């Protein structure tokens, strides 16, 4: 256990307010995403209750969608590998938070990774870069812990509510609305929003082109072939041109 000052109740309230003020606007873009994940659960080849378990257990929207929609179309291992490859970026998040987490008690170091989704990572790292004099999160391990738990808890509970709502309302939506098309639209949008450097753009374009060319392969193998080609192309582009910026990076983002 790390020695640290405990927060007064006034400081706790201030951290809670800051966490919710940061988290609520970031959840707005995730609302339709969560809803679509819920709708996809009802259309999955998995039993609906098993598909629903992805929300509390996996708690990562893109990976959940991959697992839920590929079930029945790819082999069991194809579904698992696709779900995992989408989440590989979390290793980067863990690497970035490893140092500030060393000042945290053991129970928190074990529990915090469960809540480590894109938005939690973005908000926590943004607050950690502030001056310890102006931001309590950057200055005190106890404040960081409280901030992390409030933000993570908010996203976790909201995600459960929204995806469950999509699951309940999903069967009522007529098939003619073709709501399943919203899934590739979301993925394309997430890629385009995240890409701000040239090698990332190369990785996305090659991933998309190879993914498209191999979309007819059995068991949805084209996803892995496209992903591997895109990763190799992105790495090669960085080696050749460096991390050339395409535009100013986003603050926060989805």
């Amino acid at each position, binding site marked *: 256990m790390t020695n640290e000052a405990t927060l007064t109740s006034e400081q706790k309230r201030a951290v809670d307010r800051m966490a919710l003020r940061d988290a609520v606007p970031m959840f707005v873009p995730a609302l339709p995403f969560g809803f679509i994940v819920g709708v996809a659960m009802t259309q999955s080849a998995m039993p609906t209750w098993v*598909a629903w378990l992805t929300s509390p257990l996996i708690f990562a929207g893109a990976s959940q969608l991959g697992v839920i929609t590929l079930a029945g179309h790819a082999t069991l291992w194809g579904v698992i590998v696709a779900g995992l490859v989408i989440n590989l970026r979390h290793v980067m998040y863990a690497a970035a938070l490893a140092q500030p987490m060393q000042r945290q008690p053991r129970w928190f170091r074990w529990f915090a990774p469960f809540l480590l989704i894109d938005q939690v990572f973005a908000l926590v790292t943004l607050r950690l870069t502030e001056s310890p004099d102006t931001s309590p999160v950057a200055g005190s391990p106890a404040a960081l812990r409280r901030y992390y738990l409030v933000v993570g808890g908010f996203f976790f509970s909201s995600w459960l509510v929204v995806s469950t709502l999509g699951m309940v309302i999903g069967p009522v939506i007529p098939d003619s609305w073709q709501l399943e098309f919203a899934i590739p639209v979301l993925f394309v949008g997430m890629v385009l929003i995240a890409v701000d450097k040239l090698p990332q753009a190369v990785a996305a374009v090659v991933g998309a082109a190879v993914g498209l060319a191999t979309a007819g392969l059995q068991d949805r193998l084209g996803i892995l072939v496209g992903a591997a080609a895109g990763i190799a192309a992105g790495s090669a582009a960085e080696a050749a041109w460096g991390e050339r910026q395409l535009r100013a990076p986003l603050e926060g983002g989805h």
Partner: protein
Amino acid sequence: MSTSAALVAVLVVAVSTYLMRASLIVLLAGVTIPPSVERALRYVGPATLAALAMNLAFGGEDGLHIHWIELVALLVAGAVVVWRRQLVVSMVVAMITLWLLTWLA
């Protein structure tokens, strides 16, 4: 997909996802990632999501199917994201485009 196979898939992805998130925080604290692996990890997100999007939009049990309506809707969605940088707006515009073109065709 059988219930047991589905449960296996969900549990394996859930445990592995937790391990990836926890890896360098609890299990391998102090270990540094080799630069080549770190570089490759930076491109996993855009490459995988782009390939996944193409496969879900145009792939199928019986091969590749490119429908012009879906292609146009996807291109419109991409243009809106680049222009407005709003995921929700792009999704709404893409779905309206899809419905409108399906209705007109």
